[in-house]
């Protein structure tokens, strides 16, 4: 993974000093709340319901054991002994003290970590596929480009006061797992007709209050121009994006108001002035950054391992885990492993300090000391040998990290919601727990198969409910908490926004509604169909009818 040189290190050290001074001035009354707010936000510090919440950046979801040990240490010393992995592939602390944050940042800086631009109206963390670099269907490892973009966007002086937050995603695989269509800018790598690497540029996607999938404004961009082109897009947005209404301030609204064609024309005109300028990425720089991601460290193995096969037969629970939590790898004899942070009864994405340390140790032992965070809020060891899988499983079991539910109904994506977040309309964690409790039969879960259930506590959609096969959204009706259900949302190359099935429900009704949706699927499915396929074939009506059918007396 990328390692800081003196230049990177000095920048984050200077950032700590700058933020320490800003906090000092705030506490001394020299900065007002309003003046301090954007400064702390651009450093990931929200003021939440109970306490501040600090969002720590995990660039493209990648970290090493040393960093994770440090995070465990921080959760012990400055928080309540746990951390929360969010859908933005970062780690959130729910209970830090505002005056401790400069010290936390100083601690993070010792392991090349920070909280720069993890919130606020600026370019946010750039995300990608959690299987980047190992996915069998990968065209190019997107991480070097993201690292180049990360550096370019860090403290970008021109874009420090955008109308609203700005999110980029980069995809390097055939199947898009980075959600490029749901970001302000999505860069999709592909091979053009001449087998050269090109980028398709999506703009104006986003979830939130007005979910819109992006549009392609440039079909073919040579990778060298990624920075200058993004800069042109951002300049047009910065100048003309709305600032009078926060709900209409994302770039998607501007793209819609101008029309994608006119927006693209303005971007191209601006870009023409800077194309081939000094920010054009050189092969040299690209290769330098890429060198951090292409270390030759895998052993030559066959893609068969007798001990692994034997263990699966001997221990059905290991086999069940291997079926759900182990994923393909482009190098023979290796697999990726997901630690489930979704056992029933724990807030999805939460991990205790002890679990953080345990995962760090397992990474050290079995996976080159590296870990990844997925936007599904789980943690992944990307490079485990087939012959080590059983040992990893046993250790994961000991630490409550081996729930065999990855991609199943209980692997719920869920935002912190009303328990923590001051913007929430409704709680989301108790809903996730209630659904997990209702579906506690593992055989039934496996029978239901691949399905994504996403929960957001409000329209800000941090839980990505729009793109969940089943989406649950907290809404406020006359001051009480209700839940709107959508069906048919989808991420990836066939991205789709879910459709609302009808009037919303009270909290205690939600698990039953989910059960009825599942029953409908089970009754209607053909042998090969997953939930989303059945939905695609039969449409929303049967689901709706089942859910709203009058109880027969």
């Amino acid at each position, binding site marked *: 993974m990328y390692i800081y040189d003196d230049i990177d290190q000095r920048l984050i050290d200077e950032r700590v000093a700058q933020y320490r001074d800003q906090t000092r001035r705030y506490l001394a009354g020299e900065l007002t709340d309003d003046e301090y707010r954007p400064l702390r936000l651009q450093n990931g510090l929200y003021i939440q319901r109970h306490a501040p919440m600090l969002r720590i950046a995990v660039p493209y979801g990648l970290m090493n054991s040393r960093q994770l040990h440090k995070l465990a240490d921080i959760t012990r010393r400055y928080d309540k002994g746990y951390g929360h992995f969010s859908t933005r592939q970062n780690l959130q602390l729910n209970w830090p003290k505002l005056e401790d944050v400069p010290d936390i940042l100083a601690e993070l800086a010792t392991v090349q970590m920070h909280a720069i631009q993890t919130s606020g*109206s600026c370019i946010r963390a750039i995300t990608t596929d959690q299987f980047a670099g190992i996915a069998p269907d990968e065209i190019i490892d997107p991480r070097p480009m993201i690292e180049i973009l990360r550096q370019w966007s860090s403290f970008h002086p021109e874009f*420090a*006061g955008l109308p609203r937050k700005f999110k980029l995603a980069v995809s390097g695989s055939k199947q898009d797992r980075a959600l490029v269509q749901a970001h302000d800018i999505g860069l999709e790598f592909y091979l053009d007709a001449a087998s050269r690497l090109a980028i398709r540029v999506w703009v104006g996607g986003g979830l939130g209050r007005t979910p819109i999938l992006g549009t392609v404004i440039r079909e073919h961009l040579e990778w060298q121009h990624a920075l200058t082109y993004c800069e042109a897009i951002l*300049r047009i947005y910065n100048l003309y994006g709305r600032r009078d209404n926060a709900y209409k301030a994302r770039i998607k609204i501007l793209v819609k108001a101008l029309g994608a064609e006119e927006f693209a024309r303005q971007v191209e005109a601006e870009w023409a002035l800077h194309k081939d300028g000094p*920010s054009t990425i050189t092969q040299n720089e690209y290769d330098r950054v890429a060198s951090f991601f292409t270390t030759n460290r895998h052993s030559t193995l066959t893609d068969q391992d007798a001990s692994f096969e034997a263990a699966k037969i001997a221990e059905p629970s290991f086999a069940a885990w291997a079926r759900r939590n182990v994923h393909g790898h482009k190098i023979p004899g290796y697999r990726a492993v997901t630690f489930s942070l979704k056992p029933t009864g724990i807030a999805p994405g939460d991990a205790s300090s002890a679990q953080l340390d345990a995962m760090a140790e397992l990474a050290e032992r079995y996976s080159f000391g590296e870990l990844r965070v997925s936007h599904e809020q789980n943690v992944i060891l990307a490079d485990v040998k087939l012959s080590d899988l059983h040992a990893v499983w046993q250790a994961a079991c000991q630490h409550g990290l081996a729930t065999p539910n990855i991609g199943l109904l209980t692997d719920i994506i869920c935002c912190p919601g009303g328990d923590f977040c001051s913007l929430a309309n409704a709680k989301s964690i108790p809903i996730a727990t209630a659904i997990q409790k209702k579906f506690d039969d593992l055989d039934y879960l496996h029978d239901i198969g691949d399905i994504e259930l996403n929960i957001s506590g409000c329209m800000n959609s941090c839980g990505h409910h729009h793109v969940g096969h089943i989406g649950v959204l907290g809404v406020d009706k006359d001051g009480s908490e209700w839940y709107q259900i959508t069906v048919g949302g989808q991420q990836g190359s066939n991205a789709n926004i879910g459709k609302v099935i009808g009037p919303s429900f009270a909290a205690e009704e939600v698990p039953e509604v989910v059960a009825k949706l599942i029953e409908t699927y089970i009754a209607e499915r053909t042998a090969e169909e997953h939930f989303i396929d059945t939905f695609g074939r039969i449409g929303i009506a049967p689901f709706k009818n089942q859910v709203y059918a009058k109880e027969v007396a």
Partner: protein
Amino acid sequence: MSNLIKHNGIAADPWTLVSLPAPAEDTVRKQAGKVVIFKVTGEPAATQEQLQTAVIPATGNVIVPLTLWQARKDELASRAARGEIGIWLESYELLEHLLASVSDINSLPVIGINFPRFADGRGFSLAVQLRTRHHYRHELRAIGDVLRDQLYFMKRCGFDAFSLRADRSTEDALASLRDFSEPYQGSVDNPLPVWRRYPRVGHHALAHSKTEPTHDDEVD
């Protein structure tokens, strides 16, 4: 004491800023919405009458709002020729209108850009466009809600003068211009991204080397 920072130091201010009476709150907000979406300036924020009756000091150097300059250009022409007139823009105004109102942008000794709120970042892009697209060479001044925590960004975008908000210390603010010693990306103050400034090393070499500058760039 002056609240002007110029060329990285506190400087006496030879310019007087002329402002128009503030229009009613809601007019401005409505207009801002229109401006940003439809890219037109809509009705002027000040009425014709206000523009005609606004008091412009009869002598000395003045920076006037773009709308005032447009309305009373004839009256100001001879002073402009003597270099006594600068122009300032609201963050929602369009550079095209400024350009159309002068024969040569570099005939203006100073251009001001107003930050109505410090979090309104349009001024950054306006500055970048003035410096790069329109090659403006003279003083570019940030006015309005100008606070120390934004100065570093303003400077990088091409501002070289800052009228700090009156209630803040210029002494304290000066330090902020040096918040970061080596930024990653190119911008107006130094168009080279860091990898063109320094030979940075890749994975194999990193553990054993220090990065040394190849040449000295102006990055103060």
